[in-house]
């Protein structure tokens, strides 16, 4: 039993360390801020897959945060699948983070860079059938890695923010005002939250440990009372 318990301790330690330390691994972060210009109160939706979106109101401030491994420092198309993408409206306590495929492209356009971001939702019938976050806006050339840059509309591409859910039934739209890029280690936003799955496994491991420990303490016979 002692060997098993030691093994469990080692496994639990690894799982817990992974869960708690994973968010601290350095990653680049893009944060895009703006205001909501169309909400479900305007007749789109109601949101079913993510009911929290129904609390969003026109004029709310929102942020879209993209964390990813590697860096974006020059024009091109970047497949950032594996990163995390979070749409958040704090005033409405609404978030959306169920994205899997993520792509970011940067296209030079005169004195600016056109930014295009697509995040595919895992809900509904798939990305191409109206379940995605789509963003298109421009920033001044040279500000791709700036801590803060003004974001402007690309002529002809309105709205700059389009969050489609429920196979296109829910359509949250917004305007973009600010773009910011944070290299690894300089994240100034919210404290990172540990990933839920490692934390769950950590908790389960500790429970198993506790159970094994209790069984050992309550063994009958000649081992009773020897603790």
């Amino acid at each position: 039993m002692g060997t098993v318990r030691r093994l469990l301790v080692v496994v639990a330690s690894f799982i817990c360390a992974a869960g708690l330390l994973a968010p601290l691994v350095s990653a680049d972060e893009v944060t895009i801020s703006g205001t909501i210009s169309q909400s479900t109160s305007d007749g789109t939706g109601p949101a079913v897959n993510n009911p929290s979106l129904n609390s969003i109101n026109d004029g709310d401030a929102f942020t879209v945060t993209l964390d990813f491994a590697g860096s974006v420092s020059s024009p091109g198309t970047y497949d950032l699948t594996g990163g995390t993408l979070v749409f958040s409206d704090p005033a409405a306590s609404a978030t959306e983070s169920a994205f899997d495929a993520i792509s970011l492209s940067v296209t030079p356009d005169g004195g600016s860079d056109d930014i295009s971001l697509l995040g595919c939702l895992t809900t509904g019938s798939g990305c191409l059938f109206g379940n995605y976050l789509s963003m298109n806006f421009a920033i001044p050339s040279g500000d791709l890695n700036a801590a803060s840059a003004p974001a402007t509309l690309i002529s002809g591409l309105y709205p700059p923010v389009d969050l489609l859910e429920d196979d296109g039934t829910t359509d949250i739209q917004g305007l973009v005002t600010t773009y910011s890029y944070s290299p690894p280690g300089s994240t100034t936003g919210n404290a990172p939250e540990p990933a839920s799955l490692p934390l769950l496994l950590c908790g389960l491991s500790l429970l198993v440990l506790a159970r094994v420990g209790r069984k050992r303490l309550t063994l009958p016979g000649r081992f009773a009372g020897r603790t």
Partner: protein
Amino acid sequence: MHKFTLAAVSCAVLLCCAPAFAIDGQVLINQSTVMAAGGFPYKITQPGSYKLSGNLVVPANTNGIVIEANGVTLDLNGFAVSGPLSCTGLGESISCSNDPEPNPTYGIVTTNLDFATVKNGTVSGFSGGLNIEGIAEDIFATSNLDYGISVSDGVMERCAANFNRDTGLAIAASAALQNTANFNGEYGLRAATSSFSSNVFLANGNDSPGAQILLTASVSGNNNSCNGSAC
């Protein structure tokens, strides 16, 4: 302990596996999906129903959407496919910037005798706005260089082509019904081996009735209006 393990595994599976299912439907296209797919031209290579969910802004020297499959229906959904050309003036005085010649560009084009239906939207800012084999319905084409809308081996219906530098509408081996072409630099309509009826042409080219339509090969027309007169 066994029940506990089972419960733990179930929880992990539930957390890991998001719901995913697919149904038949229209494939949505917007600027972000195009850029994520590698940028312009956006190529449609499979039959099916496609729909714009936003405007497309196409950079210089490339086509917007290239249809490379039979059996494609593209609904522009009221949105626009815009190229970099911009034109000012009307009729013979139209002039355009950002001329891509000698390599013409198209807003939407079919290739290799692939037939498609394109409907309900705007194409502007290319050498040719819409150049397809098949059916064009409810398309508005403006500020294009050589022509607004060109249809071969199909039908052009309820379309409008205004303020294009050369020709508004062009048909070959096709029928044109209830279209309008006004204020284009040369002709309202160029037609070859086709029929056209109930169309309106106004103030194209030098504004004379004879300049509204250029007919070649065997063409028949009826109930059309050229500068207010039957033609």
